[in-house]
């Protein structure tokens, strides 16, 4: 009987892991089981262009023909409810049992909800899947007042998409600045200013309490200073929980995510994990932060697929992220947490890069509309030579110049 690689999940990590296993010579069956109704697709547009243009279509990561050509079977609309780690069998919600030899968990994460809400009011939205985005997109035209809870990437991108459609947009954040978990205070200040210029009402350091009306919808949001915000629709972007239920059934080592090594191996020898559900601590992420990004999902899946095919690639990737808000392209290379010193360079067209140092060594560069700085930073951070504050001072923070050195 043929062996089987079973991949649970339906996004970047699942798709890339299957492709890489095949590309690297894995010749057994590959089956992806995804709860979603669509083939794996690009998620970043869901909170950006997808909300701005009702005709914008879902963009698949790969065409159906590609999976077919590579003999990668994709089962959509199916949920794995149980995994028997001793018998190496997975059970779907419809009772079908799938034996496997190697298992990859790419189960992702789900949106956190607001505390104190035991129902999901019809006018409350989040944006994780295309189903979420479709629901929000169809509600936009009938709404005038939008309250966004949480000033993370998702919240701010939705704010920039909706305020440009002449909605009255308020963003409420519990922390004292926007994107507090993701970017430096310098970049937070810059982005706050950009949103204020675009008429977004930004409120920080405030907790919220949604008030449900007779209709069962949220009709207003009460803040902890007693003020009230009227809302036609409410978008919640307050972080995520990794989907760990299957990992727990298998008694895998978990923290804030399934703990994996530099080959995306879990604590069980035939089980791998990658993407939003996994956590890995390495040179570029000493704290082992669970990274939720396209880059991390793809790079972790690549080493997992390679390992499953018998390869020996290891994860050694500089984390990078991007966000588009208004005319600003925000690009981040490396993680700035734990930085001890920062320095900014502003250009003439409201473009800027913020350089972050830990013990005089550059660990992260955040750029707004400076793609060259971003690319140079990614290349330099990935290199074997440290970039010091002095190195950058010598070229007046023109980081591209260091590539030629």
């Amino acid at each position, binding site marked *: 009987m043929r062996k089987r690689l079973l991949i649970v999940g339906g996004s970047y990590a699942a798709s890339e892991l299957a*492709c890489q296993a095949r*590309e690297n010579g894995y010749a057994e069956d590959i089956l992806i089981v995804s709860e979603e109704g669509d083939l794996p697709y*690009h998620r*970043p*547009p869901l909170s950006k262009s997808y909300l701005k243009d009702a005709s914008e279509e879902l*963009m*698949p*990561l*790969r*065409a*159906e*023909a*590609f999976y*077919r*050509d590579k003999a990668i079977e994709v089962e959509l609309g199916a949920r794995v409810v149980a995994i028997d780690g001793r018998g190496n069998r997975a059970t779907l919600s419809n009772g079908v049992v799938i034996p496997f030899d190697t298992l990859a968990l790419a189960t992702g994460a789900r949106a956190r909800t607001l505390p104190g809400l035991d129902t999901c009011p019809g006018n409350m939205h989040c944006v994780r899947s295309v189903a979420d985005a479709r629901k929000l997109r169809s509600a936009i035209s009938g709404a005038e007042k939008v309250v966004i809870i949480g000033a993370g990437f998702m919240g701010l991108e939705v704010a920039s998409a909706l305020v440009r459609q002449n909605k009255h947009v308020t963003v409420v954040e519990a922390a004292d600045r926007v994107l507090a978990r993701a970017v430096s205070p310098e970049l937070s200040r810059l982005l706050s200013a950009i949103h204020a210029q675009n008429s977004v009402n930004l409120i920080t350091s405030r907790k919220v309490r949604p008030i449900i009306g007779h209709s069962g919808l949220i009709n207003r949001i009460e803040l902890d200073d007693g003020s009230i915000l009227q809302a036609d629709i409410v978008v919640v972007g307050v972080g995520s929980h990794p989907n760990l239920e299957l990992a727990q059934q298998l008694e895998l080592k978990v923290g804030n995510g399934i703990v994996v090594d530099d080959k995306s191996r879990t604590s069980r020898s035939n089980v791998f994990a990658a993407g939003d559900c996994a956590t890995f601590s390495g040179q570029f992420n000493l704290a082992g932060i669970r990274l939720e990004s*396209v*880059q991390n999902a*793809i790079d972790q899946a690549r080493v997992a697929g390679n390992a499953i095919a018998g390869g020996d690639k290891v994860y050694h990737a500089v984390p990078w992220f*991007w966000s*588009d808000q208004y005319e600003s*392209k925000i*690009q981040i290379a490396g993680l700035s947490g734990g930085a001890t010193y920062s320095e900014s360079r502003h250009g003439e067209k409201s473009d800027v890069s913020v350089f972050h140092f830990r013990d005089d060594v550059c660990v992260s560069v955040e750029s707004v509309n400076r*793609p*060259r700085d*971003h*690319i140079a930073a*990614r*290349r330099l951070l990935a290199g074997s030579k440290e970039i010091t504050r002095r190195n950058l001072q010598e070229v007046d923070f023109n980081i591209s110049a260091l590539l030629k050195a």
Partner: protein
Amino acid sequence: MRIVVYDQGGARVEIGDVAGQTLMSAIRDKGLNITAQCGGCAACATCHVYVDDEWTSKLKPVGDVEDAMLDIAEERQENSRLSCQVKRTEDLDGLTVRLAPGSGF
């Protein structure tokens, strides 16, 4: 309109029947192996192609962001482009490209 693509292994594939609005989406929708990690916003270099010489001058010039991103592509050449930045238009009937080796960064 028709596009001719040579894949990483050198096989010739003609694309005429898919709707994709950019060169990248046409290549992807045909089922060829193109990573296009960022989905077409010129934030990576994993849709890197080489454009056949007779076509390079007929395309809109490389933009600033695209130019920066091409710097991280493996084996950038004079005729390198990010296929997500090339719009499919009628005057490009017969456009011929080769998928570049590797997948960028």
